[in-house]
């Protein structure tokens, strides 16, 4: 091959310069027809949601975490959840919401809410507490599990700075709930227990104003913070995602044993009302032996009274290729659990299904009829079945 000498002759330079100039002119002509994204416009303010527009740069300061230990070299160990992340300066834990700032651990989501609105309490899958009322439901970013079918991945799998969030301090949340005449506040959607400092303050403020506090959680929390939490909330629904370590490992990046410990600890503590939900994913955790094992463990450790939900999976996030759970499967699970002696077993996430009703475990009469997201009738009187007098556990009165 002919190897040309690298030489910049005057003629070639002029040629190049001409091409360059020509392109710049053409470029500015083209610029006129270039498409430019419209300026970011902010959503209109909601009446019962957060005020005005999301605040991209928070005015609320990160709050120092309650449970962590300082290690050598400015590192810290987060003691909030079983992951016990060791976090270097400037880094964050698995949940992406707790950051080591100069040897101290801070929660980045304190007072930073991305969901805040009234929702029928039935949507949070807590059935034995104030049925038929609205609950003011809020969420912060982040989660300490990574479920592949997460319905709320946009909140749960995001870093706090990636979500649209509002500055809403605990007292603001309470004021909004009162304004919307909600007798309770629910912390849900993502993982409220990793926003522990926020959760605790909201709970305290809410109870001070006579509101009930509900928590929906994956149960991935250490014993000590859990103990403290139980003193400040009224009800908790724990997602028991599957009754096998393999399932937790493959699908949720977690460990089953920690969740079981949490559920047992709540039951032993006895202060908050406990309900448990199991999302049934077809082909993963829907086989009969697993459901039976779950029911047996449930009865041995929690007794017969704790309500249990078998909830329907819907294709979402990274498991979009998996069909939803057949309703038949949920009904079968419900039968198995009832046969195992559990007294309150529900079909979850199928609004409109009769498996959502509460029946008296003794006389079998319909006590709470739930149609869609509404409670058609509630016959529980004074915590008892009006037909046979059987005690129906729950927190039925406001």
């Amino acid at each position: 091959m002919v190897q040309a000498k690298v030489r910049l002759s005057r003629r070639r330079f002029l040629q190049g310069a001409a091409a360059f100039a020509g392109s710049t002119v053409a470029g500015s002509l083209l610029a006129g027809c270039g498409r430019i994204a419209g300026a970011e416009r902010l959503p209109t303010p909601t009446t019962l949601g957060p005020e005005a527009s999301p605040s991209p740069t928070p005015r609320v300061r990160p709050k120092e975490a309650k449970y962590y230990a300082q290690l050598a070299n400015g590192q810290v160990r987060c003691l909030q959840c079983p992951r016990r992340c060791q976090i270097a300066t400037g880094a964050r834990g698995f949940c992406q919401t707790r950051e080591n700032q100069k040897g101290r651990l801070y929660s980045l989501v304190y007072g930073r809410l991305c969901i805040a609105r009234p929702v029928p309490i039935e949507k949070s899958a807590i059935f034995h507490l104030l049925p038929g009322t609205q609950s003011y439901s809020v969420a912060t970013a982040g989660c300490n599990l990574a479920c592949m079918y997460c319905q709320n991945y946009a909140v749960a799998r995001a870093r706090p700075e990636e979500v649209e969030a509002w500055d809403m301090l605990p007292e603001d949340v309470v004021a909004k709930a009162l304004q919307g005449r909600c007798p309770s506040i629910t912390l849900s959607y993502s993982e409220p227990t990793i926003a522990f400092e926020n959760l605790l303050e909201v709970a305290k403020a809410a109870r001070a104003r006579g509101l009930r506090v509900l928590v929906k959680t994956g149960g991935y929390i250490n014993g000590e913070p859990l103990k403290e939490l139980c003193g400040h909330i009224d009800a908790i629904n724990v997602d028991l995602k599957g009754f096998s370590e393999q399932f937790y490992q493959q699908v949720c990046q977690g460990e089953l044993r920690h969740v079981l410990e949490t559920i047992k600890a709540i039951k032993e503590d006895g202060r908050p009302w406990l309900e448990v939900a199991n999302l049934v994913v077809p082909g993963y955790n829907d086989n009969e032996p697993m459901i039976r094992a779950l029911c047996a463990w449930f009865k041995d450790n929690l007794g017969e009274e704790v309500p249990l939900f078998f909830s329907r999976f819907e294709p979402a996030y990274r498991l979009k290729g998996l069909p939803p759970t057949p309703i038949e499967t949920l009904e079968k699970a419900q039968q198995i659990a009832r046969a195992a002696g559990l007294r309150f077993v529900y079909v979850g996430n199928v609004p409109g299904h009769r498996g959502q009703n509460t029946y008296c475990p003794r006389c079998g009469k319909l006590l709470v009829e739930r149609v869609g997201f509404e409670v058609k009738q509630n016959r529980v009187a004074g915590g008892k079945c009006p037909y046979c007098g059987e005690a129906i556990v729950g927190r039925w009165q406001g």
Partner: protein
Amino acid sequence: MSKVAGSVVPSIALIGFTSIIGQVVLLRELLVVFYGNELSVAAMLAAWLLWVATGSSLFPRLIGVLSRESGPACGPGTADAPNGTRAAGHPGPFSALQAAVALVLPLEILFVRNVRSLAGALPGEVFGFFPTLVWSFVALAPLCILLGWLFTAACQMAADRLSVGQVYLYESMGSVAGGLLSSFVLLYHFDPWQIILGLSALNLASAWGVWKVARGRERELRGSRGRLARLWPLPIALAAILLIPPAAAFLQDLSLRQRWRGYELVESRDSIYGNLAVTVRGSQHSFFENGLLLSTTEDFLAAEEGAHYVLLEHPKPRRVLLIGGGTSGLLREVLKHPVESVDYVELDPTLIETAKRFLPAPDRLALRDPRVAMHFLDGRLYVQGQATQNPHYYDVALLAVPHPFTAQVNRLYTLEFLQAVRQVLQGDGVFSMGIISAENYPSQEMQRLDACVYRTVKEVFAEVLALPGDHALVLASPRSGVLTADVSTLLARWQERRIETALLTPSHLRLRLSPERLEYARRTFGGPALLNHDFEPIGLYYDLVLWSGQYSAGLRDILRGALAFHSVWLLLVLATVSLALMTGITPPGAAVPLGLAVLGGAGMAWEVVLVFAFQVLHGYVYHQIALVVTAFMVGLTAGSWWATRVRAEEAGANRRRLALILGVAAAYSLLLPPAFSFLAAGPAGSYGFVSAQVVFPGLTIIAGGLVGAAFPLASALYVGQGTRASRAAGILYAADLVGASLGALATGALLIPVLGLAQTALTVALISGFGSVVLLTRRWGD
């Protein structure tokens, strides 16, 4: 052409034939495994082209270096001189490579169908972009490297008889034959395994034949003849006919189970449009289209919400149009209203044919209901036809198609399509379309997509009502005052029509229309977004960003940034590259492969643009699109045939011709957008036939011709400079393919979605224009 040269021509054509059919079959297989949006498909195509490029340039050199073998340094038509250990034109390597292709073909299918297990994907897990990219590259490597290498080996084998340009020409002819055969015969009548095994048998036969002929030549030289050996095709053909059907059936069964591990597969069928699979769990059947979940029987709430909200919005729905949704229970629910007729439009008859066997009784009855008329054609084509022939006919129109993840689907989300929908609706008619959204929290990506859909609908209809949810609904009417958010009115209609539902209750309706939800709808749909147009399909882009965000925040942010892409940047890059080439900082020879790469990329871009525009203007009509694609290859062949004729001995003339081709390419590119606008603006249907049957194939032939003509000219220019024929072939073939690969990635996945058709064409014109200028000014070897 000598007799001996003629004998290897079919084997050379077989390379193109195998490439095109293998590509069609394997890309379809990859689609069933991965998520088939435009970016993924572009990545698969890019993987294919890049590996062929590697195979044609890198491997022969690598092996050459290893074995210290140097081939003949000869130009086209020059007699070869033995130079090294082996005589030039020895068919051994070619024969061996072709035999290897035969072996690798079936292994490819086995591999692709096992990719999910190999990648550790869980059942139901949808792949993100990076695994798609990595596994496409891994899967396609063996076959594509062999195919590329085979081209170089063919040039080497035939160096004494055929020029590189001629080899390219014969290979293109094989592609044309393969393209026609696969589009019009094979995909209609054979399953993937039968096609691949047949292809294997052909390659094996050719490998053997080439080797035999060579041996025969040696014997002839020694004076002996092997007449019996000439009957070699017979036993191979016989064996193929006998063995292929049972082997295909066995392999099909085995490999399907691998693909659908974790499911209970009850049916898998390949139609011309793609793969349809049915799985079962208990009594619930699920339908998959190209590996993506389409619908599930017993998904009552989705069907009930999809049908009843919109039908209740109309006081007296009599004539209904339903596009898609026949397997999801939508049709069954629509028929619960007192409708007089339902026109149900579905593209693929195989879907309904297959689904009928697995649908529950109510859905099967719905398909047979006397009020239902089925139309098996492109939904867009149907609506456009009705808009002119039967305007203002329907009371209610329901659009039940996936979110705009491909150009094909996006056509049903554009302003122009919605205008046609308005045209078929009565003034007080109601339209509804579903769109993915978020029940609790819409991410920014989700807001953009939802806002794009909402705003585009709002641009066309007088009144729009959006109901948020994971499956959001956008309801619209051409006249304001038709839609109502008044729950009592809707419930009264529900009662009056005595509609019984499995799960849907009045409380669902109350919740969906509650002030809180309508407020939330504003958050989800009210944001800023660009309008989705036919020739500026921004919906595709928004969907791409949404999908990428579920897997990689980094990719999402890069794609988000792409919206700020400006032609100015491109121009700066182009100017810099041209400057470097003109001023001689780079070796002067680089200009020729670069020019060829530019044309390769332009060719790919034109093909994508033409198929895209065709679908927009004339609907997705399978055999017509196949014809457009084939027209490109016909053009390619004609172009290279022309170029092998006119090729001059003088390098300067060849260089000027190549520059001219690039210049014409630039002009052609500039001409495309006005041509499409002209065709689109014409009174509907008036020159539809001419446009579809003459203009489009014509335009495509020109595109192919420009690309095809470049190769022989470039190779003559290159070889004229003393580069060895096989080496030149490798480098140029690779340049062509690398360009094509980048063209595929950029055009389908980014340029069209972000910039739109006109600016894409402009971009291609700019690049070609610069290439032309560089070639004209850079005198090399004159």
